[in-house]
């Protein structure tokens, strides 16, 4: 029996604002991440920044638990739990006492207070409280307000947290003309990225990488670099603040899905830094272009459904449209302002897919059965999907150049059932010497990918003998594969 009607959805040509995107289901599970999650994941990546989550036991307990699971670190995370009394009579006195205590005992350089739904509901003014307290504590105080009833995902939490950090920045004594900041990197292994390698080869200094691997001192020194490189859209607000407050230019590498756009970004960057990247970029451009042209020949006219994925839905779909593929339905958790350009790209390709908000898996299952696309992109395991090929773009590069384009293109071709497996699965099969098909990746390329994936790096670092064990014991390999699937 059909439970969901695609005709209740708007098509892409009618999508102008977030409210136009409806879910097929009234149920959500597990539901979208909230901005608290985004704020805490971003803030706890920064060394010597104390983070205080103010909210109910659930908000505080769960956010600590999740950061522990995902980042393995939350030693600077504090929980300030509200009671019924606090909600009725206000939190000012206890908040002030707690801030003074943390400042005195732990002496953080900076302290970020993150509010949550219930406190936002009652309208407690944490910003004013923090402002009134600033001259009584040594730590620089900042506030990020989060609530999940005014937004649909973790993105605003991440954006607002990065932007809040701008109060830490000081006017530079001098600007180092041959230096850059990477803004928005959640991956601490950004030094393995193409952009990082190209710049350091030219003698460009990497001033700061924020937030992953960053510190309060590095954030304070952000204005000392010549230019900001935006590697994720959540850092755009911070880049704009740096531009308005310190006259710093920024180049976006997060929003380019085509070789021309990337080439232009590199040219602009090279111009500001007064370096010559024409040979290297030319080679990368030509290689990416021919790869894309070859892929387009195989993929033109193929249809796809975009489901749950860590990659922004409209960005990924626009990329696939540029290869001549046709989206039938796109599921997304949000419509970000930077998505509007991707919507234009999809419209210009002539496609007009249904657009749905992520809810529970059942509607997507039904849509697959009804629309029967050639591909579907989702990080959920759907079992045997017959002739439909499942792809997972969750662990695609770092989005800092042609390597991201190449990685996505490589995963689309060759067209075989091999593509239903994620990079992790392919690695496991490669290491065991078994696998349904030949992989185009050598073990060295696989190792490079491990180094770019924090979760995998952590796995091998926690188990130094793991690599050798997996080679010798295929049963252990299968156990690890199942364990990693469970993590997803």
């Amino acid at each position, binding site marked *: *029996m059909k*439970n969901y009607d695609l005709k209740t959805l708007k098509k892409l040509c009618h999508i102008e604002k977030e409210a136009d995107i409806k879910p097929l*289901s*009234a*149920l*959500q*599970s*597990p*539901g*979208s*991440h*909230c*901005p*608290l*999650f985004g704020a805490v994941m971003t803030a706890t990546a920064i060394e010597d920044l104390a983070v205080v989550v*103010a909210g*109910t*036991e*659930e*908000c*505080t*307990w*769960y*956010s*600590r*638990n*999740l950061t522990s*699971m995902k980042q393995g670190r939350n030693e600077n995370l*504090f*929980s*300030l*739990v*509200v*009671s*019924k009394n*606090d*909600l009725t009579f206000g*939190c000012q006195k*206890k*908040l002030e006492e*707690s801030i003074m*205590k*943390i400042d005195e005992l732990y002496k953080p350089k900076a302290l970020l207070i993150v509010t949550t*739904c*219930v406190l936002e*509901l*009652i309208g407690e003014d944490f910003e004013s409280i923090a402002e009134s307290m600033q001259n009584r504590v040594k730590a620089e105080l900042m506030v990020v307000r989060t*609530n*999940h*009833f*005014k937004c649909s995902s973790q993105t605003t939490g991440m954006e607002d947290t990065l932007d809040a950090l701008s109060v830490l920045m000081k006017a530079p004594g001098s600007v180092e003309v041959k230096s850059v900041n990477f803004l928005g990197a959640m991956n601490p292994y950004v030094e393995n990225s193409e952009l990082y390698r190209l710049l350091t080869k030219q003698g460009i200094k990497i001033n700061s990488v924020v937030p992953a691997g960053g510190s309060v001192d590095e954030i304070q020194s952000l204005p000392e670099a010549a230019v900001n490189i935006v590697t994720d859209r959540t850092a755009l607000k911070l880049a704009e603040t740096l531009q308005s407050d310190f006259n710093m230019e920024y180049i976006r590498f997060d929003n380019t899905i085509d070789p021309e756009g990337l080439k232009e970004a590199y040219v602009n960057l090279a111009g500001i830094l007064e370096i010559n990247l024409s040979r290297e970029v030319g080679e990368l451009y030509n290689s990416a272009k021919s790869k894309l042209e070859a892929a387009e020949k195989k993929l033109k006219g193929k249809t796809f459904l975009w489901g749950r994925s860590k990659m922004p839905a409209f960005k990924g779909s626009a990329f696939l449209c540029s290869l001549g593929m046709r989206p039938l339905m796109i599921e997304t958790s949000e419509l970000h302002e930077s998505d509007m350009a991707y919507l234009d790209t999809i419209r210009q390709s002539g496609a007009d897919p249904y657009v749905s908000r992520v809810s*529970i898996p*059942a509607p997507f299952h039904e849509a697959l059965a009804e629309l029967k696309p050639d591909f579907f992109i989702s990080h959920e395991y759907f079992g045997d999907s017959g002739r439909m090929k499942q792809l997972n773009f969750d662990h695609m590069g770092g989005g800092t150049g042609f390597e991201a384009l190449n990685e996505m293109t490589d995963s689309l071709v060759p067209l075989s059932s091999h593509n239903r497996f994620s990079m992790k699965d392919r690695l496991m099969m490669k290491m065991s010497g078994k696998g349904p098909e030949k992989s185009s990746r050598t073990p060295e390329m696989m190792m490079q990918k491990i180094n770019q994936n924090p979760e995998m790096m952590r796995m091998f670092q926690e188990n130094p003998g793991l690599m050798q064990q997996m080679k010798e014991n295929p049963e252990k390999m299968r156990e690890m594969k199942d364990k990693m699937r469970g993590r997803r």
Partner: protein
Amino acid sequence: MKLYKSYPEPNDRMGMLRTLGAVKDACIIEFGTAGTTHFAVKAMMQQGGLQANLYSTGLDDSEITFGSHKKLEQAIREAESLHEPKHIFIMASSVTAVIGIDLGSICTMLQDKTKAQLIPVTTGGFRGDFDLGVKNARKLLQETGLSV
């Protein structure tokens, strides 16, 4: 307000959810923001204890301002269609508890249109600790004839 350096003490709503979530094939719909449910689902899956079908309705600004329960009604109808459960637990969240949504009355109102027994769980997490939640959940399960 209490300040914690490590994990805070879980509240009664967490105990309630943890216990009800362990009931195989139970249907739980949280009337609240989706982020809370996401956190709870991840934590319970991590602990290997989620057997129930746990959903959120999600909640936006206008629903909070105007007190609409239309989404809850649609969610109940859909859960019935998907699972045909005998009981559906309708759980308040901290947000809906603070704004004073009367879940008991809503369940009474919707019961005529629903085959499953609608069981309101009105705690927003402000009544006590985790143990209290577990105790109350077990009592509720006993009354409905379900078991963990």
